[in-house]
């Protein structure tokens, strides 16, 4: 009884739980024997970063983008094209991805964020479809339907130390985890600023926020661009990990995955997308059914969640945790 309440006190302190959870994530691959499980976790982290960027748009502006998969795919393709066709060092592809995503998102955002609701959804979808079709058609550079293979692995060479090559699930686990934690940290800092408050106000009542001096279009574009860059980071990681890309990274396939992660995990939170990613990767592994049956399941799950639990699992989980851990008054 004494130890239980001591544990409770520890868990109440957020300065303990967060780092403890991170520490758990860090040592996990050393405990887990199976390389396959680590591989699944790598994919989970990559998808979580994608969903984080996607939810920045959906969750923070309240508008549904049906085209965010374009940023993921563009991140992957920019990496592939630069690394394979132009023989650029893979690490340099990272800033290239981000810059490309920044420009693309500002252009798309400038046009589409003037609209709301159904119009915004359809325009973003149209842009993403155009990019998808364009990449599929431009065989010379992008390899058309077949994509690009042979992306060289990332390496780190620090003098006097052995060279680290990222070519295994184990090494990628740490790389993608680092990216994920970095993204979460950056976004939490950005959202805890005047920018974050302005965006929250716009989401609550756009008209009122405008009449209080907040320029809606500008802030929406900033959020849209941040979301695009974060998702392109996921694309970079994906291309580096798989060492190849195909047009599927630009397809509605990833849009659907993204929306499921956001809705089931928890929109408007930083932990929801990660939870959603776990579910999207975990359930197919547990179900062990054909692709079609899995998707049938996810289709139903999406409908059920939208109707019954639109805020996602994460907020309920947090509330449950607080209730269990915090002593009753």
């Amino acid at each position, binding site marked *: 009884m004494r130890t239980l309440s001591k544990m409770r006190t520890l868990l109440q302190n957020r300065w303990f739980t967060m780092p403890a959870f991170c520490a758990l994530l860090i040592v996990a691959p050393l405990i887990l024997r199976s390389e396959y499980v680590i591989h699944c976790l790598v994919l989970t982290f990559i998808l979580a970063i994608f969903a984080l960027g996607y939810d920045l748009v959906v969750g923070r502006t309240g508008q549904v983008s049906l085209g965010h998969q374009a940023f993921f795919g563009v991140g992957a393709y920019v990496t592939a094209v630069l690394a394979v066709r132009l023989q650029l060092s893979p690490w340099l592809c990272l800033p290239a991805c981000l810059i490309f995503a920044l420009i693309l998102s500002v252009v798309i955002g400038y046009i589409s964020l003037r609209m709301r609701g159904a119009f915004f959804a359809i325009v973003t979808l149209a842009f993403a479809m155009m990019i998808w079709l364009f990449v599929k058609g431009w065989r010379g550079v992008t390899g058309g339907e077949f994509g690009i293979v042979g992306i060289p692995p990332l390496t780190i060479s620090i003098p006097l130390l052995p060279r680290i090559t990222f070519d295994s699930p184990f090494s990628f686990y740490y790389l993608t985890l680092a990216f994920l934690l970095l993204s979460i940290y950056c976004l939490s800092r*950005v959202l805890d600023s005047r920018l974050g408050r302005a965006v929250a106000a716009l989401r609550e009542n756009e008209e009122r926020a405008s009449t209080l*001096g907040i320029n809606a279009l500008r802030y929406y574009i900033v959020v849209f661009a941040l979301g695009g860059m974060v998702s392109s980071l996921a694309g970079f990681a994906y291309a580096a990990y798989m060492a190849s890309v195909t047009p599927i990274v630009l397809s509605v396939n990833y849009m659907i995955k993204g929306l499921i992660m956001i809705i089931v995990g928890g929109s408007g939170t930083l932990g929801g997308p990660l939870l959603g990613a776990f579910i999207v990767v975990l359930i197919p592994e547990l179900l062990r059914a054909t692709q079609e049956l899995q998707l049938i399941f996810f289709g139903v799950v999406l409908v059920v969640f939208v109707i019954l639990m639109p805020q996602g699992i994460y907020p309920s989980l947090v509330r449950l945790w607080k209730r269990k851990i915090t002593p009753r008054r």
Partner: protein
Amino acid sequence: MVTLEVRKLTKDFGGLRALNAIDFDVYEGEIAGLVGPNGSGKSTLFNVIIGLIPPTEGQVTYKGELVTGLRPDQIAQRGIVAMFQGNSLFPNLTAKENVMASMHMRSKSDVLSSFFSNKGHRRKKDKLEHKAMELLDFVGLKECSHVPAKNLPHGEQRELQIAMILATEPGLLLLDEPTAGMNPEETLRIMNLIQTIRQMVSAIIVVEHNMRVIMGICQRVTVIDFGVKIAEGTPSEVSSNKEVISVYLGKQRHA
């Protein structure tokens, strides 16, 4: 000194002319009243000044600068801020967050400090929070700072709105029926509050139905009906104006 100049302002909605070449001035330091029966065009004039509706013709000049056709956020940045009747809070944010959001124009971007200077960022944020709490205290909402705005009772929502507009450090304040739905005691409180605020801003425009409020706090009153100005002057002049009386006797139900 003229703070706001409205010249020949006209607004058509399809076939309907809501405002017809209205001329309207507000002088520095005064509380100007705008009255008229329902459908007279008061709200339209109000919304055009704040930039929510573009005028069909005419100009609005604020402190010498032409502000016609600017976006609402641009107009707010120049100092014209409004308090609306309904739908002007951020419902799920707490009272404190509502006020902090309203301080947007008067604070500077701090994304960089958020990243690089943890302590500096903390200090900036504390300063903002402190100022927000001061404003909430001024309107008497200090204990409710953590309550989501949608859960506040109606009267306190009104007070929160006042805290929010004060947070913007406005030049010209526009109030849309600030005493609507209030009992005489609350009305008096608001009237006093408005007179206190008068010291803090350049000028105030009050749109009101309640003639007692207008008589009590306004230096000058403008009466409009069917989008046309029908009288202008001090409250006593206007209230003894024959045309105004007939318009109000014909259309109004209670004073």
